[in-house]
C-alpha cells in the first residue's frame, strides 16, 4: 500500500474539553487507485487530508507512506517526504500570486534540486501549454486548478491528495478537473484521495467513502452524500 492510515485519532481543544475529530480512522490506498471521500461540513475531511499529507500529526495512530511510518518522524523528515512523495491540491488553487504558471512548477523543482520532471511537459499534460507565462490573477478558476494539479505532480509523487479541488468551479469545469485527476491516477499510478462535496462529478472512483463520527464508511449511493 502506498498510503496507509492506521487507527488515527485526532482531537482538538474545545474550551475546557477535547473534541474528537478522527476516531480510529483507517484507510489504505494503493498505486493507481482513486478514493473519493465525502462527509458533512465539519466532519473532519480536511483534517484527514492534513494527517495523510503530513501537515498535521495525529494524536494516535500511524501514517505510512510507501511503507515508512512518519507519524513520529522529525519535522525535517516529514517535510522531505512531503516534497518528494506527496502532491497536494487545495480547495482554492493556492498558487503564489507573484509567480507565473511555469514558475509555480519551477519553485517546486527548486525546493528539490533533484527533480528532473519537465515543467512544460507537466503543463502540457493538464492542457495549459498556452498559459505558461500568466500569473494566477490572469487565469480562470479552472486554469488555476490545472496549474495546481501540474504543480502537485512535479517530482512524480506516489500519493496525491486533493481537498475539494472543484469547490470553486462550476459543475462542467468540476467534471473536467475530476476526469483529469482520474486519468492522471491511472497514467502516473498514484495513490489518490479526493475529498469532495460533489461526488457525482467523479465517474468511477475505486471506492467512495463517507466520513462520519470520525470514521470512514463505504457508500453505495454516492449522489446521496449530503452537500
Amino acid at each position: 500500500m502506498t498510503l496507509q492510515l492506521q487507527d488515527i485519532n485526532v482531537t482538538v481543544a474545545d474550551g475546557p474539553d477535547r473534541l474528537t475529530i478522527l476516531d480510529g480512522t483507517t484507510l489504505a490506498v494503493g498505486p493507481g487507485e482513486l478514493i473519493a471521500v465525502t462527509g458533512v461540513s465539519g466532519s473532519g475531511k480536511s483534517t484527514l487530508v492534513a494527517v495523510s499529507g503530513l501537515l498535521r500529526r495525529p494524536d494516535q495512530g500511524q501514517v505510512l507512506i510507501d511503507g515508512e511510518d512518519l507519524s513520529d518522524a522529525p519535522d525535517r523528515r516529514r517535510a522531505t517526504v512531503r516534497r518528494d512523495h506527496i502532491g497536494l491540491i487545495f480547495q482554492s488553487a493556492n498558487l503564489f500570486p507573484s509567480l507565473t504558471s511555469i514558475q509555480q512548477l519551477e519553485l517546486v523543482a527548486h525546493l528539490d534540486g533533484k527533480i528532473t520532471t519537465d515543467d512544460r511537459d507537466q503543463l502540457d499534460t493538464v492542457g495549459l501549454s498556452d498559459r505558461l507565462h500568466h500569473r494566477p490573477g490572469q487565469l480562470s478558476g479552472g486554469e488555476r486548478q490545472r496549474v495546481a494539479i501540474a504543480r502537485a505532480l512535479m517530482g512524480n509523487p506516489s500519493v496525491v491528495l486533493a481537498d475539494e479541488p472543484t469547490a470553486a468551479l462550476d459543475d462542467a469545469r468540476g467534471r473536467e478537473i475530476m476526469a483529469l485527476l482520474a486519468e492522471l491516477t491511472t497514467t502516473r499510478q498514484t495513490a489518490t484521495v479526493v475529498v469532495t462535496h460533489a461526488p457525482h462529478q467523479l465517474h468511477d472512483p475505486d471506492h467512495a467513502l463517507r466520513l462520519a463520527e470520525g470514521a470512514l464508511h463505504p457508500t453505495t449511493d454516492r449522489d446521496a452524500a449530503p452537500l
Partner: protein
Amino acid sequence: MYLALRDLLVARGRFALVGAVIALVSLLAGLLSGMATGLVDDGISGLRRLPLTHVAFQEGSGSEFSRSSLGPDQLAAWQDRLGDDAAPVGLSFFNARTPDGATVDLALLGTPPGSFLAADERGDDALEAGGLVLSDAFADEGIEIGDELTVVGPDITLPVLGFTYGGSYGHVSIAFTSLETWQNLVYGENHRDRFNAVALRDPGGVDLAAIAEQNGMDLYTKAGAYDGSPGFAAESATMSLIRTFLVVISALVVGAFFTVWTVQRTHQIGLLKALGASTTYVVRDALGQLAIILATATALGMVVAVGAGSLIGGEVPFRLEAGSLISSAALLIVAGMLGSLVALRRITRVDPALALTSQP
C-alpha cells in the same frame, strides 16, 4: 531565494515604499555622521595635523591648554632626552581687528621658529620675523598677505606673512606665530619664559610617562589631548548618542516592517512548507529578501547623503570619510537584521496545515 526574488520584482511598489523609509533613515544616519565628524573635527583638526605624537601638560590641567602652564625647567627635562623632538607650545584664543574694521577669532599657536612644529620653510621665516601665518580659512574672510591684524586686548599689531593649511582648535581657526610673540601677547612684561605645553615626537625607546611624572606633568597621546579642546567631550558624547538612537530606531523600523510583512505572508509560508520546503529554506528565503531590501536602501541613502553633504559642505562643518560611511551602513544593516529576529520566530512556527484553510 526563488520565491523571494520574484516577490521583490512583482511587488516592486510595496517594497519600494519600505525601501524608501529605510533609505531615509540611512540618509539621516549618513548626514548626521558627516555633521558629527565635521563638528568634532572642527574642534581638533588643527591639533590633529600637527606632527606630534604626545603632549605634556601641567599636572592636573586635564589636557586643556588654557589651564596648563609650564616653564623652562620642564622643557629642559624633555629636551635633555629627546632633543629637537620636544618643542614648547602656547595656545590661546584672541580677537583681532582686520584693516577694514571687522573682527576675527584666532586660536593663536606660538612655537619657536625652527621647532619641529614649524618645520615648513616659509612658516619658519614668518615666525622669525614675528608675524602671523594664518590658516587658509582666514583667506576666505578676505584677509591677504601683507594685511596687519590688531590683536584686541594687548593692542599689538602683527603682519600677515603667509597662509597654510592650519585647521582649527575649539572651532576657531589656527594662526601660527613665534613663541616669543605669543608670550608677548599673553604675559606682557611678566613670566616671559612660560608656555602652555610641550609637544613631543616619540622617537621610541624613551619612557615618556616617567619623564612626565618626575617633572610634574601629565602625558597625553595626541588623541587623548583632543578632550581638552573646548566642547570636544560633550560634542562627541552628544553625537554618539544621536547615532545610537538612529541605529536603535532603524532596528525597530525594520523589525516592525518585517513582522507585519511576515504576518501578511503567513499563508504563503504555510503553503511553502506544505509543498515540502524545510524551515531552514523558508527562513533563508525571508532573510535573503530582507537583506536585499536593507542593503539596497541603505546604500541608496548613503549615496544621497554624500551628495547632500557636498552641497551643504560650505556652510556647516561636514566631513564624510569612506570608512565611517561604510561602518555606519554596516551598523544599520546589522541593526535591521537584529530587529527582524522577532519575526523569524514567527516564520519557524507557521503551521503547514494553514495551506488547507482558504486564503484570507
